[in-house]
């Protein structure tokens, strides 16, 4: 859940990049981190938890500065996509305010995309969250491979597989080149801030 501290005039929003392993979630964050002007971004952190096993996720804090005397901060997280990291994935989703579902355009990953979206929905339900009400955008990554000899999914197929129920905005992207990365970020950030402000900053009657 968004952290809103009226006494300190701070609003923190949490956006999670979700998707199957190797679809390009971290690449999205790396691109944002490396190409964005430094006055709004913090350092990209990779959290490595070592216990019985090694778990990872990334965090990139962004600061919008003061608006109407409020400090607005957006935290971007990625989850580990690999199946065995289910617990971490679920943990990272805790308190999420906005979601980017990054899908892999490679045809061989079709099933993984679908499974990952199912996994996301299931994990959200466990937190009493509904994907229908949360701000969500889809990003179809690796579109630069379309038209190449590598078998890729068409946009219709991706829409059919992932967006037929959701009906949310979707972006094509090639995260390694930055195509679609900032478009996705801007859109989900706006949606999330609007969602958080409407939900938590309603003026008392």
């Amino acid at each position: 859940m968004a952290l809103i501290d009226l006494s300190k005039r701070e609003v923190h929003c949490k956006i999670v990049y979700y998707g199957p392993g190797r679809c390009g979630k971290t690449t999205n964050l790396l691109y944002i981190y490396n190409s964005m002007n430094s006055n709004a971004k913090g350092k990209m952190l990779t959290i490595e938890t070592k216990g019985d096993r090694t778990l990872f996720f990334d965090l990139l804090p962004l600061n919008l500065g003061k608006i109407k005397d409020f400090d607005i901060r957006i935290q971007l997280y990625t989850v580990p996509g690999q199946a065995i990291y289910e617990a971490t994935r679920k943990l990272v989703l805790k308190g999420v305010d906005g979601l980017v579902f990054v899908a892999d355009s490679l045809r061989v990953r079709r099933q993984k995309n679908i499974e990952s979206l199912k996994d996301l929905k299931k994990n959200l339900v466990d937190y009493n969250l509904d994907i229908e009400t949360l701000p969500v955008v889809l990003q179809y990554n690796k579109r630069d491979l379309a038209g190449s000899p590598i078998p890729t999914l068409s946009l219709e197929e991706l829409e059919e597989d992932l967006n037929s129920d959701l009906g949310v905005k979707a972006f094509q992207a090639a995260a390694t080149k930055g195509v679609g990365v900032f478009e996705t970020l801007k859109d989900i950030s706006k949606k999330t801030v609007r969602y958080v402000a409407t939900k938590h900053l309603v003026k008392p009657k």
Partner: protein
Amino acid sequence: MKEKNTIPEPEIFTAEIEDTIDDLFKPSKKIEIDPLTQEIKEVQAEPEGAQESPLELDLKVEEQGPPPVEVEAEAAPVEDEKQETLLELDLELELEEQQGQGADQAEPQKQPESAAGQAPKAPDEPQDIGKRLEQLNQQLFTIEWEVTETQIHQTLDLLAELLAAPEVNAQARTHSIIELMKRVLQNMQFHPETVPATAPSVLKKSTSHLTDILTGKDVQEEDTEDILLELKALIEKPEETVTEAEPLFLDQEALMEDQGDKKTEEESRLEEPGPQGPAPEKESLHGPAPVFPAEEGLRVLEAHLIELNRCVNRIEPLEKLLSKTHGMEKLYRFQHDIRRTLEDQILELSNCFFKGRELELPKPSRSEKDSQDYINSISDKTGASCPWKELLTVNIEGMEIGFPNDQLVYASAPPWLSKSAIRKGESLTLARLKAWPWSKLKGLFKGALAGMDDSVLSAMSFPVIRRLGDQELKVPSSFTVIILYDGENGAALLTGEPPLPIKIPEDAEYTPEMGGGFEGQVNTNGNIIKVATASSLNQV
């Protein structure tokens, strides 16, 4: 001030935020990320219309064609990809394919770099002061989010680099600000409970002020004074609440740094050996802290410095060995960072307390030197050539295949219940290795899987490798299941025989990166052992 207690109108508020998002969330430069190595390459902006380079063409197609595609769900079905633009992507496709075959491990693999807190760039690259200040600003942003020891260390390193810069040394005020910032960070590290919550913002303010000074902006002397006072206020606060016993000379270090020629009572005591025993003034601040007389304190400090220096001398040969050993890069960096931190501490303390006095730090002792020579000789002989001293080998289809001992986590005949399923399966779920459905998995494995809980182990599965190099691997009716796992990648092989250990002689030759599932090959007097690791098998 009136606005302080009001809640903004959501509509106006969000509209304003959206404008800010539009302004801020845009790339300041064009980069490309290597999909395989995650290396960042800066791309020169080409003039409009210049499309000679296939890569550029590729970018332009994506950017200028139907704009970075926003597929509105309610919009008409999206036109299929521009088939007329055959993009020259061969190289990238190869890379993508390799990355694809590297399976799901690619993401975690690269991440430890960030975990170490390193921005993806060469660490020893010379950097200008602006870059360092930018990094410092980023570090402080991060500390504002979460104070961790690693972050503080990295920020202290950055401050040390800044202190060494001639631009900083040329001005006393920049030097003082950085010294005080260091002190605040050290307090954050050792007495976090005493550091006021405003510390991160004061540090950021100080960095901004530093940037102004160093970039030649017109900075008022009073503003610098204010910054210094704010920083000092942060430092002075913990002293009132510190309860642990601390030697007096530590306080002296603090005071020497920020007081210049103004001497405090503590300093005077240190410089002129006063009455033995605890100083009453200090007691009032620190409670019953043991107070060292100056000479005694310096003597103890000198002994500690000598010991620290000895530690550095011990680390050096190990670091050298690790630097030459394949697969030990992370450990090397770890040792390297420890050594650098120790050296910085020695230098700082020596400069602070033994300025003008020659502190004789010992050279490596004979035994240390001997061990260093020994390690050097080993690394010269074998470090660069073969990374392993021992391998576990099996003979598969006439090939001798070796596995690193530390990666082989399981080697045993399959349980009869699931033998057939394992034989045919594309992947091996560890739960299949249970002798009986109610059996425990814990205890069956060694290495990185040892000690994991059953719930975790049961959920893990690894690909079963069916081909190595050009060779299709046939599974005999009676077979051994071998599992390799390095903490990130895992793979299973079904072999006709259990693996046997073999020592690798020092003069063995090693040829890395063969492909086809092999990490490299070791030549021991004409006997070729192809080495497969968990990560190389995942590239098959």
